[in-house]
């Protein structure tokens, strides 16, 4: 019986540090997440103290240099952290993704020295929580249409508009917000909680990512000091570069959710007997398990190779789209198929499949929907834009 979830020995391609990182994050998830996650997901509440705990572990902005509070890790290490966190729950990985790739990454890449010193160390420790506002009520897949605006005044900008579906907005101390200036160019700025006219209503009644706080960002004549603007980045490539970093992490993360479902189903299949033999002894059930481990293995190889390219600064947005799209799809299919394998038990909170499957409905939607990523690959291989 081969119960390994590393069928092609991807482990051997990792460094000793990367293996230690995986073990440490896995231990954290086994100890601090798995025992409590079902109860928070059922209650539809975020996990209190999650961010400081992730900060103490070093899972927030791990690839940010040490002088700004990060750990200076490489991209494969970042991917491994995402994988292990999502083995616990996509809500936990989402919190780490947003903080790392959508908040710390743009501040580190586009921020001024003062902005970096002011925000990054506190974001890395989890003392401060950040969120990322791109999507709007009327503009999801097509952020170029955004209506949120800034108007320049003598020493500040006046910000008006609204963002929707924003992970961690109800908890955030700061928001990285993308808005158009008077010339119609997309600019990025840091909005702080407490600024007049800025509010963050919570989005209730989700069936997915129930242990993650989601909300809106509403700006009514918010005066944002000029020093909060990212000085040089203009256009959609600003937010899109953040999405590239997050999507790369997601391609690893969802493998963790799939692995967790597979581990549980494999164990269940060897213990539960029907018609006088274990479930694992029936061809139909073996098909589910064999296909799951095959897809997990392919996804691991895809993400690992993408990590190598990312470390060499060679990963293209189209490659990242392909990996995000493929890996989220296989993960959600694995969660659904393996849920069936547990029969009635599969719908219960004691087992993770239903929760992972429901979470992955968000993951297959955010950071570019499944369809949009297909269009990106389509455009890359044909050279023809089929979006509009």
């Amino acid at each position, binding site marked *: 019986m081969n119960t390994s979830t590393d069928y092609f020995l991807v482990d051997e391609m990792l460094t*000793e*540090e990367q293996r*230690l990182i995986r073990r440490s994050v896995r231990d954290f998830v086994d100890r601090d997440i798995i025992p409590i996650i079902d109860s928070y997901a059922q209650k539809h509440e975020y996990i209190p103290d999650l961010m400081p705990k992730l900060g103490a572990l*070093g899972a927030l902005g791990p690839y940010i240099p040490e002088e700004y509070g990060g750990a*200076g890790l490489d991209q494969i290490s970042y991917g491994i952290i995402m994988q292990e966190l999502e083995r616990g729950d996509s809500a936990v990985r989402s919190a780490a993704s947003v903080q790392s790739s959508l908040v710390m990454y743009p501040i580190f890449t586009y921020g001024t020295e003062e902005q970096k010193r002011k925000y990054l160390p506190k974001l890395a420790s989890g003392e401060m929580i950040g969120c990322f506002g791109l999507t709007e009520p009327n503009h999801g897949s097509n952020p170029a249409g955004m209506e949120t605006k800034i108007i320049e005044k003598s020493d500040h900008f006046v910000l008006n508009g609204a963002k929707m579906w924003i992970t961690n907005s109800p908890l955030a101390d700061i928001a990285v917000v993308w808005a158009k200036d008077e010339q119609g160019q997309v600019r990025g700025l840091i909005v702080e909680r407490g600024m007049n006219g800025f509010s963050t209503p919570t989005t209730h009644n989700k069936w997915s990512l129930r242990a993650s706080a989601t909300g809106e960002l509403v700006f009514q004549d918010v005066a944002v000091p000029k020093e909060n603007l990212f000085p040089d980045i203009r256009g959609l490539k600003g937010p899109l570069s953040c999405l590239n970093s997050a999507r790369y992490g997601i391609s690893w993360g969802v493998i963790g959710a799939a692995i967790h479902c597979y581990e549980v189903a494999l164990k269940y299949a060897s213990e539960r007997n029907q018609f006088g033999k274990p479930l694992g002894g029936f061809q139909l059930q073996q098909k589910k398990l064999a296909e799951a481990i095959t897809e997990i293995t392919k996804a691991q190889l895809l993400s690992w190779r993408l990590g190598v390219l990312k470390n060499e600064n060679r990963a293209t947005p189209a490659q990242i789209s392909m990996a995000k799209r493929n890996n989220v799809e296989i993960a959600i299919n694995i969660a659904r198929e393996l849920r069936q394998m547990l029969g009635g038990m599969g719908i219960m909170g004691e087992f993770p499949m239903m929760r992972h499957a429901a979470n992955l409905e968000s993951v297959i939607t955010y950071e570019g929907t499944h369809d949009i990523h297909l269009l990106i690959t389509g455009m890359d291989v044909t050279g023809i834009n089929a979006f509009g």
Partner: protein
Amino acid sequence: MKYLVCISKVPDTTAKISFKNEDKEFNSDGVTFIMNPTDEWYALVRALELKEASGGQVTVINVGPKDNEKFLRSAIAIGADDAVLIEANEETESYYIAKNIAKYAQENGYNFVITGKETISFNSFSLGGMIAEFMDLPFINQATQWMLNGEVSTIYKEIEGGEEVLEVTGNCVISAQKGMAEQRLANMKGIMMAKTKPLAIIPIALGEEKVQVSQYQVTPPRGNCKMFTLDQIDELVQALQSEAKVI
């Protein structure tokens, strides 16, 4: 104060246990090894806490093959200052390990040698006592708490129906168990720093192995349970006689 923490490796708790070479040797094929939990969670973490409170140095040590370096690196990532690997064959027995650790501790002026109460693999409980004997130091076995005030250690032990509180003046050897500390996870910065801290590999110095394992035996799995109801006494007696052959 200088603390020397003994770190051993053990099969992962979910590993399938089997033997080879006519049942003389543990079959490590396909088995993942981890740092022995009682060494990691209790001995190492308590030494780190005491060092953080009043200064000193925490060294981790292992007697074993070169590959064990990775367990020492894990211990450094959790917070140890440095590590020593005394290079030896795989399955070395306690006497030989203890002799070498005692020699190293003595030559390098360690105040305390700390072990986990046992390895979760061989469960021999033997290392600490032997080290203490070789170093001519007191040995406190299976300690659940350890406070240090100057030279004086206050150590708690569980005993049948209660607790024993001991005071030890000066150097000693302690084996640690549950209660002593809480598991501490290596964080990303610790892991990255682990590379830069010293790990010395030194050749084995003392003694030959005196104890050889002649055979390991796996406990046979428990048989299936057969249920009888109250009105089946005759069947039960018959089964005990003819099937189980115990009466």
